[in-house]
């Protein structure tokens, strides 16, 4: 990469990274929020408390924006493999194309088909049917995660196929879908999506607590999100650790790059806490390392061996400078999430969850951390897969379409302008909604006797 101008391949990679990064934050939020909304609606049906309904309507508005932006940025993804990665599509289409077909059939249609009822059907169907629609949308988002992660994981740890001519031919679909890294990646990503939503919900609650609101809708928002975080954040650390063991087994070069590890050490590997890996000099500068900690964390033994980057040919090494830091951003923020959740628990036990302004500020600051962590994790696993597009089978350099740098450069510029403009505005309106907060309708029991314990059927539309 000594040349001064970027090649069409570099531009295509930048474009893919840009469009997929912008895309993934919206589905991640949709996955988390739709389940959250389903829980709120279920509580409303069970208890008849109006604030659950208020919260439902409020988060549905934000969900609608996130979902819409996920759909339109997702259409781009469905075509980008063909426009920019013709080599990959021709080779792997029989496998990843088939998995993507299943994603569209079992997830995208399901979500889009019931979203209309979820958002606009409050007066058109009964409360139970409406809840069923909400639940279906939530299930759809999870199905979508299932298929796209099966496809991505197959690219990371491919199996169950044969190469015939110039293409991958499926041999065993069960092996393809349930490839070695898939279960870990699926759980890791699903939990990440829940964390993304929980942190955003918590931050919204905290913001309004700081502004002085203490009504049940706000308190519920905040406490529900914190309980969610307390359950998920530590679990995510455990799942991440298991995912790491799996990666060490199937993609050892990625682990070596993540840890900035150059030499294969015997009798126990140290862990570089900090440092700046230098790909040219084959060393990690300013390394601050702790003996044996690498073996302990990565192999769960005192002296487990971990292959260093030097044991891989130069042209098969992922960029350690990038993944070393993206990984540390992910883990660092993940640990902060655990601190946030545990602090909330302690404050709750002391009955001070709603009166600790410093803690609410902390929660507001952590609001966007889910997104940052999610992207850092994806950067780690995708950059860590390089130079392969299908690990060990097809190089990224063989995957690109025969396009000129001008064409890709032009489209990249167009995408950057449109995405920042359009999604920037979308995010602005989401923030504006969150700042306005949920409306409060007076409690049912404040009014004359209500004979409908399951909540009124004729309710105002999701205005």
């Amino acid at each position, binding site marked *: 990469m000594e040349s001064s101008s970027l090649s069409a391949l570099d531009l295509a990679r930048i474009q893919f990274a840009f469009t997929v990064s912008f895309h993934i934050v919206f589905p991640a939020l949709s996955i988390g929020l739709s389940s959250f909304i389903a829980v709120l609606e279920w509580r409303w049906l069970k208890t008849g408390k109006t604030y659950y309904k208020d919260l439902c309507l409020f988060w549905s508005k934000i969900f609608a924006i996130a979902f819409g932006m996920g759909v339109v940025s997702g259409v781009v993804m469905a075509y980008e493999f*063909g426009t920019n*990665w013709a080599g990959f599509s021709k080779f792997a289409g029989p496998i*990843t194309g088939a998995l993507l077909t299943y994603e569209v059939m079992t997830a995208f249609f399901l979500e889009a088909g019931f979203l*209309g009822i979820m958002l606009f059907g409050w007066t058109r169907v009964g409360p139970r049917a409406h809840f069923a629609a909400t639940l279906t949308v939530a299930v759809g988002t999870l199905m979508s995660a299932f298929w796209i992660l099966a496809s991505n994981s197959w690219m990371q740890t491919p199996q169950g196929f044969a190469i015939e001519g110039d293409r991958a031919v499926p041999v065993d679909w069960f092996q393809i879908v349930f490839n070695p890294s898939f279960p870990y990646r699926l759980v890791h990503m699903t939990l990440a999506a829940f964390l993304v939503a929980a942190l955003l919900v918590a931050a919204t609650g905290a913001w309004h607590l700081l502004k002085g609101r203490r009504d049940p809708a706000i308190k519920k928002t905040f406490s529900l999100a914190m309980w969610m975080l307390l359950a998920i954040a530590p679990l995510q650390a455990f799942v991440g650790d298991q995912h790491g063991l799996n990666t060490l087994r199937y993609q050892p070069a990625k682990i070596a790059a993540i840890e900035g590890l150059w030499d294969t050490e015997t009798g126990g590997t140290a862990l570089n806490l900090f440092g700046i890996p230098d790909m040219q000099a084959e060393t990690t500068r300013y390394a601050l390392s702790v003996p044996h900690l690498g073996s302990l964390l990565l192999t769960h033994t005192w002296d487990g061996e971990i292959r260093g980057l030097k044991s891989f040919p130069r042209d098969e090494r992922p960029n350690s400078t990038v993944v070393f830091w993206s990984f540390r951003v992910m883990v660092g923020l993940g640990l902060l999430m655990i601190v946030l959740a545990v602090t909330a628990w302690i404050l709750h036990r002391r009955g001070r969850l709603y009166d600790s302004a410093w803690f609410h500020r902390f929660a507001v600051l952590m609001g966007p951390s889910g997104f940052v962590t999610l992207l850092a994790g994806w950067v780690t696993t995708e950059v860590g897969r390089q130079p392969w597009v299908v690990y060990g089978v097809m190089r990224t350099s063989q995957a690109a379409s025969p396009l000129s740098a001008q064409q890709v450069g032009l*489209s990249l510029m167009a995408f950057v302008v449109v995405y920042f403009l359009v999604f920037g505005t979308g995010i602005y309106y989401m923030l504006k909604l969150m700042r306005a907060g949920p409306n409060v309708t007076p409690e049912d029991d404040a009014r004359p006797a209500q004979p409908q314990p399951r909540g009124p059927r004729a309710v105002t539309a999701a205005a």
Partner: protein
Amino acid sequence: MDLTVVWAAIIALGLLIYVVLDGFDLGIGIVFPLFPDERERDLMMNTVAPVWDGNETWLVLGGAALFGAFPLVYATVLSALYLPLVAMLACLILRGVSFEIRGKASRTKHLWNLAFIGGSTGAAFFQGISLGAFVQGIPLANGEFAGDAFGWLTPFSLLTGLGLVATYALLGCCWLIAKTEGDLQRRLHRLLWPLTLVLIGFIAVVSIWTPLQEPNVAARWFSTEWFHRMVPAPFLVAICAYLMRRAARDRHHTRPFLLATAFVVLGYAGLLATLWPYAIPSSVTLWQAAAPEQSLKFTLTGAVVILPIILAYTIFGYWVFRGKVRHGEHHYH
């Protein structure tokens, strides 16, 4: 049973459904400039608010199924049509997001109106251009696109681009006629016949131009085997036009939409007759482009079960939101 043909038929059907469904909601954006009243515009957008996501999903199905069933087509045609497809996607983003934002904006509402109009019209135009360029053929060498970055830009493709804009405008107008009432519907009814005439003009020009520029197509269309199948087409178009004229005069509510759909189906049938049996016109047949049998079988197993279910709940969704849309009924937030 020939899996390749079955998959080609599913994709063809999926794209037809896409053209009709997203056609009418893109069409609303195309006729937007003729209805400057913001309250009416709110109403027009509300008629599709619950369904546009689902409509656009048929385009995603087209892309994904092409990727899985005909990877060679997906790879070469999409990279050949790089710039128009990127432009189309950018337009779809602009208009999709306008659905979410237009209703919330106050100072910038006029900009989101523009985004909705430009995005809808642009998406239709670039889809039509891509279609025209595809019909004219994609130059290949060693299974890779080997043409020019601007090879898609021809008088013919510009014509098909405008033709698709006209098609969607008619579909949008007819959909709105079915979903509105009163003065707005009256003005839509007045628009119906002029739009139909424009569309018939495009159908005529494209039908004459296609065999003239493609000797292969001409040979097939006028062969003894095909000719008797092609002959009824112009008469059916004429019958539809006559019925449309009457529906416009009688201010029919739902019949115009059915007739517009009939126009689309007739045009689409002509297109399929032109392409068959090629996956990439005049160079790669469906069978040469198909994915290995194991892939086709795997996806078809699911498709046979799932696609009917999708159709069922799509129809259910439309049924839930049936009838006229009135002011303030369900706001797009």
